[in-house]
């Protein structure tokens, strides 16, 4: 593995290896002094062209635990405002001596574009509506930890699938590990009918449901997605109230799932829209476990790419 660009280019073995490494590394986070010198002297560039809280701090934390130095870049106050192109910016930053680039960008394929033009590893921290591979890896790790398996589960993903890079990565990742994925949401926010084939890694393990009930019934895992109001620019849903009433999750919907089924959400959550307020107390919501596992997964990714392990 030279870069981590997306889930689609990873094999199930590669995914399993990263998860295993993450499981091993997670222990470091519980030490009295959670820091190891493994990546001392390595310089990681964090290039975030889009707002981020969890992902950005998670990568930064992962670097610090492994003793890598970080350079943080934000579009504001940089030469971007003088019109410098992305490629020129990154080439210049590489000349500063960076060993790895973590990039989040509003355009799909930007990490792939960089990977073609620079010599150091690139990690995709979310590109447009394409993929968010580390999010899928941390979702896998969370489910594996809680349910002790990743095969033969029914995973329900509900919400704005169309604009969600998390959904795209999760749909592929869970299927690759042997589970079934059912997606549901407003039909205007589901993949286009002509796009469906791509998501069917196994024809029997992927289904588009127009009735949320069908996806939720007997599910082992429910992944609720954020309504990405900022990404639309087009009226896909009549109103948020309409969305909440028809596609938002409440304790009533969760009566359909398997007892003990996990509830995941990649954050940030719009409480009262995709998740009702009562679900803050749902006993099997693992939203903060996801965040913690995010650090472990990112440590594993950085370590694999920077030491060739």
């Amino acid at each position: 593995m030279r870069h981590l660009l997306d889930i689609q280019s990873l094999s199930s073995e590669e995914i399993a290896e990263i998860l295993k490494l993450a499981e091993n590394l997670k222990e470091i986070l519980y030490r009295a002094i959670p820091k190891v010198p493994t990546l001392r002297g390595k310089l990681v560039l964090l290039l975030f062209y889009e707002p981020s809280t969890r992902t950005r701090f998670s990568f930064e934390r992962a670097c610090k635990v492994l003793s890598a130095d970080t350079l943080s870049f934000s579009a504001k106050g940089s030469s971007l405002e003088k019109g410098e192109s992305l490629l020129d910016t990154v080439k210049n930053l590489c000349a500063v001596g960076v060993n790895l680039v973590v990039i989040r960008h509003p355009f799909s394929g930007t990490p792939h574009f960089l990977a073609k033009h620079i010599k150091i590893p690139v990690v995709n921290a979310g590109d447009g509506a394409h993929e968010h591979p580390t999010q899928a890896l941390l979702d896998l790790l969370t489910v594996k930890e809680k349910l002790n398996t990743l095969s033969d589960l029914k995973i329900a993903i509900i919400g704005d699938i169309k604009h969600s890079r998390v959904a795209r990565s999760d749909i592929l990742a869970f299927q690759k590990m042997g589970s079934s994925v059912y997606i549901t949401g407003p039909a205007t926010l589901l993949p286009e009918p002509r796009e469906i084939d791509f998501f069917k890694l196994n024809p029997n393990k992927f289904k588009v449901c127009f009735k949320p009930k069908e996806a939720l019934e007997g599910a082992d895992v429910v992944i609720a997605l954020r309504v990405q109001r900022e990404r639309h620019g087009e009226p896909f849903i009549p109103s948020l109230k309409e969305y909440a009433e028809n596609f938002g999750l409440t304790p009533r919907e969760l009566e359909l799932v398997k007892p003990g089924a996990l509830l995941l959400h990649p954050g940030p959550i719009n409480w009262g829209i995709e998740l009702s307020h009562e679900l803050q107390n749902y006993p099997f919501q693992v939203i903060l476990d996801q965040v913690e596992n995010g650090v472990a997964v990112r440590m594993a990714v950085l370590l694999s790419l920077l030491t060739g392990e």
Partner: protein
Amino acid sequence: MRILVRGGRIIDPSLGLDFVGDLLIEEGKIKGLAPKIEVTEEVREIDAKGLLVIPGLVDIHVHLREPGEEWKEDLESGTRAALSGGVLRLACMPNTKPPNDSPEVTTYILEEAKKKAYVTIYPIASITKGQLGKELTEFGRLKRAGAVALSDDGKWVADASLMKKALLYAKNFDLPIISHCEDPALSYKGQINEGNLSAKLGLKGIPFSAETIAVVRDLLLAKETQSPLHLAHLSVKENIPFLRWAKEEGIPFSAETCPHYFTLTEREVDGYNTLAKVNPPLRTEEDVQAIKIALKEGLIEVIASDHAPHSPLEKEVEFELASFGMIGLQFLLPLSFNLVREGLLNHLKLFEYLITNPSRVLKIDPPCFQEGRPAEIVLFNPEKEWIVTPEVLQSKSKNTPLLGRTLKGKVEAVILKEKVFLI
């Protein structure tokens, strides 16, 4: 000065000729053609054995970028690429900077062409001012300045009432209207074909409906106005039944496609290859086959390059920021000739699509081998293979997904009036 082109396969779709023989040119004009010509006077002989000897191609869809974007292409470099591809007359689209929406720009293009163009240029002016789809341009003044057709290429005239007015008003001046069929609401923010690749790459897709809805609306308007309509660069299978219907109805229309739509598929963009980003987008294998059938059936009867040069500044960027378009002048003939190799078209038919049909759309006399006509002759070797490298591409821009590939069929020489260009 006399030139004798000896022993080539002479094909002329205007005269319906297809035979092996000799072609004599005197003082830059066609002097005669026959199975065997003996010349006693001094003559330059060109051995054309194994070559096709054809009139110059007429490319109805070219972007030359002058005025305004000369770092991508200009009248000199673009027409040099045309010459190398055997295109001896071309119509240039109006999306320059400023756009060709006024007689001044049309005049400028023609004046500059006199100074530096290798081949004949026919400017296409825009249908609406600034190509904004709001107000019609001055069709009469544009025609007098030298415009041969009208198009808002790159944009559809989305206002149906305005498009109808354009079709009607064009009748006063015998100007064909060329439509870029794409409903912008359906293709909003679209980057590539809507399908498995758009799903894979997380890019907004351009659905077939964006094209076919526009095709059908414009055919209906052509039916109502009985004005000639030319449909540019068709790419999807779903158009076909509607084209068939339009033929049956006798609607005055012609349809065009480009070599990339019957040669390449959306798979070219995998890995975010901006060189394969084009509008309309490359579609699927099924569409490629459908376009071929439409060509075979004569539903589509014009092949044009849609030569659209862009520099690395527009292409070596994030996919969503990259400009649409690929160069095509030097690939027009080699790729189109595959239709003959595959048995879809015979030689005469292919050259109708590349010479006489586009000429008819533009209402110009096609290049032909009639005695006394100026020599506009292309010598094409259908068997010669060549590799697409930046060095052999004459355009200023090298944006093509074909870089590195081997193409079969090459223009070996062009005779243009008194001049002989060996390519």
